[in-house]
């Protein structure tokens, strides 16, 4: 027993030593490479989801792997440490060592890094310009969402969404909107003075008052019997069928566009980084 423990300890130390030798001393050169991130995601789906979940949400399998989308350990970890977590495993946990080529480990690390960083700080594959066209056109996003003052009122403003959310969250919101919290955006129908039904959302409500923003941008502050003009809707206004309505490429293009939305990055088409500019030098 003692011997086997010692053997494991020795093996771990040896692996750790190997890790130090094998791990790159500098930053992960693939961290901002969209192709590497995409390759890392493919490997992640094959190797990691059993414990960490399909989106890195964690809590799966025997190991109940930690959430990798919202992990302070990963945000704090250097590229070298992140490499070692995968290459060497994490002793005292169910995280095994993965005997993969350095390139694959760097790709996996780039993907895991992208799960934790705001979407505008990681490379996102896809054609952002085409995504903008979808946002304001076929996909109908601008019917409810604004970007820099252009768009509708029924959904949250997305002008800074690339700086506020991670890529995984954007994907989740787009494909599985039923998992989103709806505080401030609960769907209702509002009966107008002429008896017409208008799409609207609830900004706040209590037993005494309700504030409703309708799809034209008009705010209704209702009290007492006026509150009866509002009827709750079971399904939120965000369509739940984007996975069917859009092709995988279109979804990726939309994500590429959304991930760039930040007040502190250029957004005009002339300043927008081209697809080739995303590639590492």
């Amino acid at each position: 027993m003692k011997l086997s423990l010692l053997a494991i300890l020795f093996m771990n130390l040896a692996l750790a030593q190997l890790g130090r030798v094998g791990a790159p001393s500098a930053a992960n050169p693939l961290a901002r490479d969209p192709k590497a991130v995409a390759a890392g995601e493919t490997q992640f789906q094959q190797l990691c989801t059993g414990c960490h979940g399909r989106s890195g949400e964690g809590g799966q399998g025997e190991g109940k792997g930690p959430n990798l989308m919202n992990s302070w350990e990963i945000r704090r970890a250097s590229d070298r440490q992140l490499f070692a977590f995968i290459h060497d495993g994490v002793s005292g946990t169910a995280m095994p060592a993965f005997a993969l080529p350095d390139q694959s480990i760097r790709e996996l690390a780039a993907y895991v890094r992208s799960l934790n960083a705001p979407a505008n700080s990681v490379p996102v594959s896809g054609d952002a310009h085409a995504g903008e066209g979808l946002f304001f056109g076929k996909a109908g996003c601008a019917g409810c969402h604004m970007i820099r003052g252009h768009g509708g009122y029924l959904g949250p403003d997305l002008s800074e969404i690339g700086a506020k959310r991670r890529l995984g969250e954007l994907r989740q919101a787009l494909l599985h909107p039923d998992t989103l919290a709806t505080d401030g955006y609960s769907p209702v129908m509002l009966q107008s003075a002429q008896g017409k039904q208008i799409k609207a959302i609830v900004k706040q409500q209590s037993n005494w008052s309700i504030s409703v923003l309708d799809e034209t941008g008009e705010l209704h502050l209702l009290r007492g019997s006026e509150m009866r003009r509002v009827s709750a809707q079971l399904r939120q206004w965000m369509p739940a069928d984007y996975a069917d309505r859009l092709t995988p490429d279109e979804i990726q293009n939309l994500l590429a566009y959304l991930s760039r939305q930040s007040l502190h990055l250029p957004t005009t088409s002339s300043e927008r980084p081209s697809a080739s500019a995303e590639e590492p030098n």
Partner: protein
Amino acid sequence: MNKCVLVFLAAVSLRAQVSQADLEQGVNQNWLTYVGDYFGQRHSPLKQIDTANVRRLVPKWVRHFNEAGDLETVPLVYQGVMYSTGSNAIFALDAVSGKEIWHYQPQGTRRRSSNRGLAVFGDRLFFETSDCHLLALDRRNGAIFWERDFADGNKAYSCTGAPLAVKNKIIVGVASSGKSCYVAALSAETGAEAWRVWSVPHAGEPGADTWGHLPLDWGGGPTWTTGTYDPGLNLLYWPTGNPWPDFGGGERPGDNLFTDSVLAIDPDTGRTKWYFQFVPHDTHDWDANETPVLFDTVFRGKRRKLLLQANRDGFYYILDRETGEFLHASAFVNKLTWASGIDSKGRPILLPHNDPTPAGTRVCPSVHGATNWWAPSLNPDLGLFFVVALEECEIYYSSEQNPTPNSGYRGTGHTSIPSEPGSFYLRALDATTGKLRWEYQMSGPTTMWAGTVSTAGGLVFSADDDGDLIAFNSKTGKDLWHFYMGANLHSSPMTFAVAGQQYVTVAAGTNLFTFGLMGD
């Protein structure tokens, strides 16, 4: 058909917009600028709450703001929605219930800071972050249009003021620790800067020879409070603060133009039409950032367009706001040692032994000021100017050091005199003579920063130095009602109406209180 739809949509959107005409109309059921109206009178025509029923005033709601520090904000109200600020945060509240409709917190690391409020124009709200970014938001849902760094990312500036919307421009000011300051106009549409007026001139410009050898990119003259505007004359009146180093005048011999002044600026061009300096070569931090109140009335037998200011230096000034001509000044505090009066040209008649010294000099008013940025108000029907005045002296010190910009260096400082405690007063001055009509003495530790609001209900609301909001009879100064707010006020009350019901709102500590009549 399409045309009809377009016309209908245009009508809807026009109805929902705050127009230049709305801003020029002044205070009504809405409160659309930090100072209420363009003239800075803070006088509301609302009179549902009056001298007879004010005793029935009760709190309707309280809204707590986390992380705000002492709130200095004066909220805006438009069509039943209240827009308020915390520290680097904006909140839209149902003005009747206090419930939050939306809030916006700018991204990025910002220093916790005071903020005094917002501007509204069209469908947009305008807000300054503590690091001098102007934000334009959709007032209906808090969506952001743009963010503009109007101090060029220079960390030497900080911003706390409420912007002023004038004809599709947003006027902003800055504060600094030594760096020379400016007033700027940004496009309400795009945030692009239209002009910038410096309160310290550049080399070769008029006034540059009033600074000795101090480099002209230093000198202060901060512009951190909100100015006023006369649409008829198309002139903006923006006050400037004191020269730097605050207490060390040796490094900057001369008048130090255009500090402690009011600048009359054409908002279309940024051209300064005239200026008036209240305190040349200030060595007591007596900035002129008090509201320049505009008043059209008969003055010495002639109808004139006046600019009134109760200044931190202890004098109440009357200027002709078309020309900047000095018309009158009289002391509104009794504790005043630095000048025996103001001469016919508007210059102070200085008394000796009032400059700060290494050993210390007793001077009145104190650094807190005979008044300060807290709001005065004017009841134009009564011709009364209401000002919260502080009777207080302090010991002022100077040092022999060379000035070090951006270091917090102020040329040394000041201390209170424990054996000579100060006292706050609410004073009603005759607006055209400066004569005292009535006064109300406050108890308390002289730590408040509360201003006033006047109403057609015959009331003026202010606070005492112990944290009570008080309603006064504006003709007599009698206190008719009071409510303990739990904290000293660092803000000024305002009033508005929704569905015919009048309310009074004021911030105290980290809370925003709204009062209305019981049973209504």
